[in-house]
Each structure stands twice: as structure tokens, then as C-alpha cells.
């Protein structure tokens, strides 16, 4: 679903991502971990077409991002680390805006908005301007907008930050359900316990380079993911 081959991205002299390769298959929840500034967000932003990169190839659903950016973006949804949405819109207007961009028929979007807004208990606030939303409410709205067009691939940068425990639990269930239906999820997190319980595969990045990747069992063995991560960080 998402193939990243030899990705390199530099900011001036600094290599933020260095020859990184990742393969995320349909049905997989793929966790991406690393310390602050390791290159997680840069990799993610390259993968969703926000950032240009210096070398490498990124393919989404069999299509090259560089050649068919729109087709690739139609197949994915992205939730950034900070849900800076359009503050001047109401929640419902933002969801309809996203639905319009993805060409979701009115009846379908209405049903999905109702379903997810009810799940996240956001229905009553949909008419409110986003500027009046709390961080958690914005995060919920970003999640709903991501699920709205039923994407094949969902890419999330620290998706659990700001969510209350109930919403976090719900999001985890939705992630699993999405992958069970053949979708794929690629997300970064600092919450290693969540990654350990939720992910089928995990990759650890350090100073822009991939230091470990594989199934959860392959990566952590008999240790906890936290122990493995801290060991790798210390090297």
C-alpha cells in the first residue's frame, strides 16, 4: 500500500531522512517511532505529498507519488501532529469541504458524518466554529475528516495527542477495523505501550536512518518495545 524506497530529504546541510525504505502492506498497522527530531514527521510529510524530497521513490497503492500525486492523495488520508484546521469554518462546513474535495456524494457523506460524529460525541458541536473547539475536539474532527472518504491508506502523526481516553480507545478500534477491511495505517507515536499493543509492524528511526524494522515480535523479541527503543537510542 505504501512503499518508500531510499528516501532522502535534506534541510540545507542537514539530512533529516537518510536513505530510508519502508513497506506497508494492506491490512497492516505500521508504527513509526523515534526521538524528537529523528525524522518521523519529515518522512510522513514526504509520504503524503506535502514535502518534496531529494532522492528516493514513494508509491501509494501502486502509483508513484512523484508521477501521480493526485491519484495517490485520493487513496490516502493524513492527520498532522497538530490539527490546525480552518478556524473560520464550523465543524460541519469543514467536513463538507473535505467531502467536496474527495467528491463524496451527499447521501454518503451525511451518513458517514452522522456515524463518526456520533461515535466521537461531536454531533452537538458540528455547527460551532472550529475556533471554539478544544485541541481534542479539533483532533476528533481531523480523525472524522480522515475517515470520511474511506481511504485505503491512513497516515497519522501522533494521532493520540489531545484525545481523551474514550476517544483514544475508539480511534484504536477504528484503526484495527480499517485494517481488517484491507486498509493500511502508518502512524508515528511516542506512546510505546500503544505501539506495542496496536501495531503489526514497527520501524525505529534515529537521526534520519532506519535502525530497526519488522513485525513487533521481530523488533522487540522478549523485551518490551520501550527497552528495545532505549537500547537503540543509547547506541
Amino acid at each position: 500500500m505504501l512503499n518508500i524506497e531510499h528516501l532522502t530529504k535534506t534541510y540545507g546541510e542537514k539530512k533529516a531522512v537518510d536513505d530510508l525504505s519502508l513497506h506497508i502492506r494492506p491490512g497492516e498497522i505500521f508504527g513509526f517511532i523515534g526521538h524528537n527530531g529523528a525524522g518521523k514527521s519529515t518522512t510522513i510529510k514526504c509520504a503524503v505529498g506535502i514535502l518534496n524530497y531529494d532522492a528516493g521513490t514513494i508509491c501509494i497503492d501502486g502509483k508513484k507519488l512523484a508521477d501521480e500525486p493526485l491519484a495517490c492523495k485520493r487513496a490516502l488520508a493524513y492527520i498532522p501532529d497538530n490539527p490546525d484546521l480552518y478556524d473560520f469554518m464550523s465543524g460541519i462546513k469543514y467536513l463538507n469541504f473535505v467531502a467536496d474535495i474527495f467528491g463524496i456524494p451527499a447521501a454518503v457523506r451525511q451518513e458517514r458524518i452522522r456515524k463518526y460524529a456520533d461515535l466521537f460525541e461531536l454531533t452537538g458541536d458540528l455547527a460551532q466554529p472550529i475556533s471554539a473547539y478544544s485541541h481534542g475536539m479539533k483532533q476528533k474532527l481531523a480523525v472524522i475528516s480522515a475517515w470520511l472518504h474511506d481511504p485505503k491508506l491512513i497516515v497519522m502523526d501522533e494521532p493520540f495527542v489531545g484525545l481523551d481516553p474514550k476517544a483514544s480507545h475508539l480511534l484504536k478500534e477504528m484503526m484495527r477495523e480499517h485494517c481488517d477491511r484491507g486498509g493500511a495505517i502508518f502512524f508515528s507515536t511516542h506512546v510505546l505501550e500503544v505501539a506495542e499493543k496496536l501495531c503489526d509492524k514497527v520501524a525505529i528511526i534515529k537521526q534520519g536512518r532506519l535502525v530497526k524494522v519488522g513485525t513487533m515480535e521481530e523488533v522487540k523479541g522478549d523485551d518490551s518495545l520501550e527497552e528495545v527503543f532505549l537500547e537503540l537510542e543509547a547506541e
Partner: protein
Amino acid sequence: MLKVLLKKQIAEVFRSYFYDAKKNRMRSKWAIAAWIVFFAVVMVGVLGGMFAMLSLSLCGALAGAGMGWLYFLLLCGIAILLGAFGSVFNTYAGLYLAKDNDLLLSMPIPVKTIMAARLLNVYLMGTMYAATVMLPALIVYWVTAGATAGRVICGLLLLLIVTVIVLLLSCLLGWVVARISLKLKSKSFITVLVALVFIAAYYFFYFKANLLIQELIRNAGVYGAKIKGTAYGLYLFGRIGEGDWLATAIFLALTALISLLIWRVMSRSFLKIATSTGNVEKKRYVEKTAKERGAFGALFAKELGRFASSANYMLNTGLGILVLPAIGVLLLVKGRELCAALGEVFAARPGTVAILLCTALCTALSMNDMAAPSVSLEGKSLWIPQSLPVEAKTVLRAKASMQLLLSAVPMLIAAVCTALVVEETLAVRLLLVAAPLTCTVFTALGCTAIGLRMPLLNWTNELAPIKQSGAVLIAIFGLWGLTVVFAGLYLLVGYKLGAAPYLAIWTLAYAAASLLLLRWLDTKGAAAFEAL
């Protein structure tokens, strides 16, 4: 602490002068110098020059009649009007709506220090405008009446008093706006409405000013005696400029006292207003089937929604929406007399009336530059259009179309009224509609392109991209420059061609430039947007 906060705010205001957002690095010394020179030319050359001319026309007569105080009273009044009423809503946004209020309030910084830093910023902005009136006024007076030590010192103290009065008025009105807006539902539109009343009053006095000034000079003695008799305070105020130490001391003390009072009132409510989300009732969500739109339609509606959501955005970049039809109506009422008068003046150059009217329409069009800050206003939400499956050129076209729609309709009304009034051939009349409309298309695309070339994405107050960015400055003054070239060329050589061929050439030039700009936006512009 105060210095650090002030430095942060000033850096934000003038960020585009020192920092190249496109290249993500500081500008070179030469580029910084060029920007500062450009800014100085605009402030000192254009505004300062305008008020220097006004001072020259007043000073000789009034100072010669021993009524220098009346001269200062007049110019101080203009400085206060320019500085204060123009920045009422900026003061509200700058003081209470800054996005980093929460961050600063969470830090161990006294609330009064934050407020003082914001006030100093408002003070500097107000001073910048007031000084463009006061400095020429003082210099002209010193040159005309003689520069004694007393006049120079008191004159500089008068400048200080005027700038403090500007600050006090801005704060008082900003505070009133803040209190009102906490209670309002349709804040943006009501704020715009109130602002328009202020602006209308401002322009009413501005246009009447010439007549009033002439009347004043003719009967300076009578008016001077009246003011002295009924409003002695005003007389004393004007005396400061003439070097009256007692008047200076009285007004310094009064200004200090009022400043203290305003400070106390504002500091008591600053925290409450700055952190308030208002007591507006929560809107109830009623599910209904949405109207489906295509990607362009959605982006276009988004741009219109953003424009309508912000009073600052509407007031600073969209006044032409009202001014253009107003010009049209005015022309229908008074146009024939105006055309006849202009026709007599420019009898040697036929067609000049049509060209000047077209120039007026295009100059008024410069009030509409909503596409110029549009890319910058994406700010931290830029990830949305960049990550959605929509072409960058569609995003840019939506921005240009927003300005085009909001400008073309008012321009069409104004241009049709102009064509009806002017006594010219059918061809000229048709071209009087075509030329301003193609100029409107060119401006919409040009503003989008400038905004894209000079993005200001990291702002904490939307006024930074809307009012203080280089893109907006270039958009406004660029069109002014173009209209000067348009009218000047006709008066120099164009009249030999005649109005119709001249207008046709400009119409074609605008159309060709628009096509080139559209092509640039679709290709290199789109690539630049993706790379932001």
C-alpha cells in the same frame, strides 16, 4: 522583559523586510536596505510629501498673521484623525486577539508587561502615521517662522503629546469595540459596519477639508477669535507648537493624567477580554443534506468564507466593493458637471476625461487586494490544501477568483455608470467598460502571484499578513504606479492616438498580461505553492 516582548512584536511586523520566507533564510543586507528604502519612500515620500504640501499651503498665511497656533491645531487634528481612527480595529486585534496571548499569559510575565508591550506596538504604529503629518508640519513651521530653541523643544513635545493622544484614542475605541464584540453574534459584519461609519465620516471630513481650510484662511482672524473665546483649551493646545512653555506643561500634565486613567481602566479588563471566548449562545446543529460542490467550488467557497469571517480582512482589503459602486452612483449624479469641468481643463488633449475617469476607477480598484494576503492566511493550515487531492493551480485559481468576483461586479457597476455619463463615442464607452474590467482580472491574478512570491506563513496576528506584509504593500502601490503610468502616458503622448486606440491598447495589454500571469500561476506558481 518588556524589551524582549516588544522586539518579538516588531520582528513580526517587519518580518518580511528581513526574512525571505520563500528561501527560508534572512535576506541579504542589500535586499533589507532596498525594502527599507521602499518603505521610507512610501511613508516619507508619498504620505509625508502630501502633508508637506498641505503644511506649505497653510503655514505662510497663518504664521504670518500671528496665528501659528491655529496652524498647529489644524494639523494636529489631522494627525490624530489619521493615526487613531484608521487603527481602531487594528488596536482591538493587536491588543486582545493576538494568537500568542495564551502562551505569554502562561509564562511568568506580569499581565501589565504583556499589555504594555502590546500598547507600545500600537503606539509605534500610530506614531508612524501621525509623524507623517506632524514632522512635515513642524519642519515647515520652523523654516517659515524661524526655529528658536523654544519652538523646537515645544514642537517635539507637541509631537509626543499628539502621538500619546493617538494611542489613547485608539485604545479607548479599541476597548469599546472589544467590549461590544464580546456580546455580538455577527461580529465580523457589525465590526465592518461600524468601521465603515468611521471611514465614511473620515472621508467626509477629508473631502470637505479643502473647502474648510480655504474658508479658514480667508477668515482666520474671525475663527481664531471664536476658538479663543469659546474653546480656550484648543487655543492653548495650538500654542504649544509656537513654543509656549506654560501650554506645553499643562498639556503634558493632562496627557499624563489621562494616560494613567486609561491604563488603569484597561489593565483591569485586559485579562478578561484577552482570554474571553464571548458569551455568544452555542449554535445548535441541525442535520441537513449538503450541497455537493466540485473541488474548485469548495475552494472558492472556502476563500469567500474566510473573507467574510474576518472584519480585518474585509476592511483592509475589500473597501473597493463599496467604493466602486459609490463612485458609479456619484458619477450618475454629478458626472456630467465633472466631465464638463475636466473637458474644459483638458480641451487641448481630447479624450482625457475618459482616460482620467478610467484612472479613477483603477485607483479605487487598488482598495481590493484580498488575494494578496490569501496564501499567507493559510498559515499553519497550509497542510490541508497541500495534502488533499487537489491541484495547486486550482487552489491558486480559487484565490484569484475570489478577488475577481468581489471586484468585477462592483467594477462593472462603476464602469457602466462611467460609460453612461461620459460624452464620447460608442467605442470609447465600450472600452471604458472593457479596460477597467481587464484591469480587474489582471489585478486579481497579480495579487495572487505577489502573495505567492512573498508568503508570510508564521504569524500570530492575522493583521501581519493582511495589513503589514510586503505583498499587500506592493499590490496597492503597484496598481497606483500603473494608473499613474496609464494617465501620464496619455497626457504625454497617448492623446495623439486618441482615447479609443489608447484604451484598446491598454485593454489588450491587461488581457495579455493576465494570460501570462495565469500561465505562470498554473505552472511555476503552482510549483512554488507546493514547495511552500
